[in-house]
């Protein structure tokens, strides 16, 4: 059985429609809550039967939760690797749940419920990982949605909760609120002006941390950073989000300032560099993933600086997702070798840019 993404209400990509505040700098906002169901060992220590019972219990509860009762459910443990990779590339399931992180085997009972902007992973490192995904900088909206889901689900399924330690999680770094808010942000201006080191170092002093495009353990590529709260205990959900809101707002301002400086002090050099990036994407015949990300980063900056005006941020967001290996294989309808993937990627990007090109330049 392979995955049919057309079943998803928004194709699972509503979060990259480029709406929301600062959408040229902030791609998306995600909040996740880690929860465990009382009465079972945590996922990593549970046996297959326990995980299946957790799934059955959650499935029954989900049927009566308003925001999830029309959700599509995928059993990851029944999907082939290509379909699991597809869901992962759309940021709908974690690498661990998809059994693709090379450290954890694909678990019996691994599943995900997906609705419009909401997701519920079952049998991830914790029994439950609730997530809300929004386009642009939208922490409050994402929190309102996830908090509602959490209350609805928590009144049907008993969570493990400790009066002193809060919501209990497998990893001590998530205990307490179990909440991780993260903002996927594009910071080429700060990278080019070499200010990024200072900004990232200051994040850590503010109790925040950063990761690459795919969260924990992933590398920073294409100047995309995920900024999130480091600690989950000792402060309330509102305080943690407020801190993230203020700091990311500040980082956005710094990025905007860096872009102004670049244009002012190195206008033609930047312009030349960005148009070259566009030219490469428009005409290259083979592109590796890293190359594509880096050139897309350049073109995205050019659109943000209004050097290129006929290309939409939405198209660029889609390119980020659809130029990944599993998506290319899905589009081509067959498994691809690495070099075939690079050819297909260049072809896909070329076509997308041609379609929107019109009178670019």
């Amino acid at each position, binding site marked *: 059985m392979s995955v049919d993404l057309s079943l998803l209400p928004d194709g699972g990509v509503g979060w990259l429609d480029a709406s929301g505040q600062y959408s040229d700098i902030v791609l998306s906002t995600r909040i996740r809550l880690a929860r465990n169901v009382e009465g079972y060992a945590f996922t990593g220590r549970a046996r297959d039967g326990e995980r299946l019972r957790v799934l059955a219990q959650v499935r029954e509860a989900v049927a009566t939760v308003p925001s999830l009762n029309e959700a599509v459910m995928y059993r990851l443990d029944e999907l082939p690797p290509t379909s699991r990779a597809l869901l992962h590339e759309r940021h709908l399931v974690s690498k661990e749940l998809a059994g693709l992180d090379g450290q954890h085997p694909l678990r019996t009972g691994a599943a995900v419920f997906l609705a419009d902007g909401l997701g519920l992973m079952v049998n991830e490192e914790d029994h439950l990982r609730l997530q809300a995904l929004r386009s642009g900088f939208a922490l409050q909206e994402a929190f309102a949605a996830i908090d509602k889901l959490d209350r609805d689900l928590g009144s049907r399924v008993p969570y493990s909760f400790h009066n002193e330690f809060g*919501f209990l999680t497998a990893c001590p770094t998530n205990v307490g609120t179990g909440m991780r808010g993260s903002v996927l942000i594009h910071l080429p201006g700060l990278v080019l002006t070499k200010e990024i080191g200072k900004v990232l170092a200051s994040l850590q002093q503010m109790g925040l941390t950063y990761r690459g495009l795919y969260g924990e353990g992933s590398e920073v590529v294409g100047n995309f950073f995920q900024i999130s709260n480091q600690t989950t205990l000792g402060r309330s959900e509102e305080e943690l989000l407020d801190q993230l809101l203020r700091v990311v707002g500040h980082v956005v301002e710094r990025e905007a300032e860096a872009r102004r400086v670049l244009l002012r002090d190195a206008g033609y050099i930047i312009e030349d560099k960005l148009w070259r990036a566009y030219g490469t994407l428009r005409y290259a015949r083979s592109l590796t993933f890293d190359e594509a990300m880096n050139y897309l980063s350049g073109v995205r900056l050019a659109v943000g600086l209004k050097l290129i005006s006929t290309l939409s941020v939405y198209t660029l967001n889609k390119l980020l997702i659809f130029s990944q290996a599993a998506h290319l294989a899905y589009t081509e309808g067959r498994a691809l070798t690495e070099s075939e993937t690079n050819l297909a990627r260049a072809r896909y990007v070329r076509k997308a840019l041609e379609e929107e090109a019109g009178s670019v330049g």
Partner: protein
Amino acid sequence: MLCDSCHERDAVVHLTTIENNAVHQLHLCERCAAERGVETTVAAPKHPLGEFLQAVHQQVTAGGGGAGASGEGLRCNFCNMTMADFRATGRWGCARCYTTFEAGIRELLRRVHGNHRHVGRAYRPPMSESLERSSALGELKERLRRAIESEQFELAADLRDRIRVLE
């Protein structure tokens, strides 16, 4: 500009130091800068859990443990987790572990989060009387299964009695 130290590679790090009110400028290549402990790239965020696990390990290998705060010698009665298991994986086995290893966990949470007290949303699990009984029953049955698996027959007999009462 060549590196002031090796005079071979290009200087990419320009270090300004002030000693006794005198300003010194030093131009270094990346390698020589690294040798002097000057960070040239953005350091990966530190992972407090990694540091803690290392600290626990040192404490154990130094012989300062015992069944005190470190939780050595304890075993979770629900999932059979020990501190050694936790050190190996960095993950607790079940919610009960938080009670079993409470003292050690408090210290761990202080290190990881700078705090050990949850101040976020409070929560009360849904508990009708029948649900309470069935969840207690489910848990006892789970423990029974585990007790039998690990051949703890005395515990198993005790659990079986308790299940009978509830049923």
